């Protein structure tokens, strides 16, 4: 039991740090880093649930693979957007991208 709780608390703190980073940074790539930390925390949770609650349910491990796919995709699409922002406006600061603001 204490193993599961420890893993969950570690994941919770990592998620909090990731949320803080994603909200507070003004830079697109740094925001992506925050999101990656949050996904990493989610993966710790999934593995902990697999190991300590349902070791016979391999759809949980499958879910971790899907989360890794999401991480890689988030990286690829995020970098593409960063590249395009840099081409059009010369910076990836999110403070300066307010074109869609009504």
């Amino acid at each position, binding site marked *: 039991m204490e193993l599961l709780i420890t893993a969950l608390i570690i994941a919770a703190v990592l998620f909090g740090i990731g949320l803080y980073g994603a909200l*507070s940074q003004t830079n697109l790539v740094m925001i992506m880093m925050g999101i990656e930390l949050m996904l990493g925390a989610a993966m710790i949770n999934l593995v902990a649930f697999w190991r300590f609650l349902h070791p016979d349910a391999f759809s949980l491990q499958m879910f971790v693979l899907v989360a890794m796919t999401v991480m890689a995709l988030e990286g690829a699409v995020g*970098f593409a957007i960063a590249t395009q922002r840099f081409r059009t406006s010369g910076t990836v600061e999110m403070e300066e991208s307010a074109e869609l603001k009504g």
Partner: protein
Amino acid sequence: MISVQLILLIIFGLAAIWFGWRVFMTSSMVRSALSLLASMVAIGILFLVMEAEFLGVLQIMMMGTEMSIMAIFMMMYMMDPGGLGQMDMYHQKNISIAAGVIVTVFIVGAALAADWGTIATQFPGPHEQNRLLGMEILKRSMMIFETAGVTILTGMIASITVALSIKNSVEK
């Protein structure tokens, strides 16, 4: 009861948290990306401690590549001062700290309050895990796995399309 597994879990968990914290506390972009890499490797070692061997090794492998790519993109777009310049890269700092702390406290509270039922003691060994995960992927979850593959293809096409440079010239 304090077991070796618990001690390792705490040590590498603290390492993951520390490096995750360093990501947002340094003004050098490469250091920031490599701190994130260290944090992700610590998460991978946590998987190994929790006896999910395949996932741990896979995590360590994938994150090495991904975070190195992140480092080069940060260098390209952010004019790294090498930790010498003081850059102001924050906004809404108080709200963010409040959000982070509140969410953390909420999740920890939920984790402590929930009734987790019985803790499993029997689990398959590494070799058996590999086989069972393969069976899961190729039998019950095959559709999900193929969807993930198609999603990667879509992501590749989408990111290339987005990153193409826009040419405003009209001549053919």
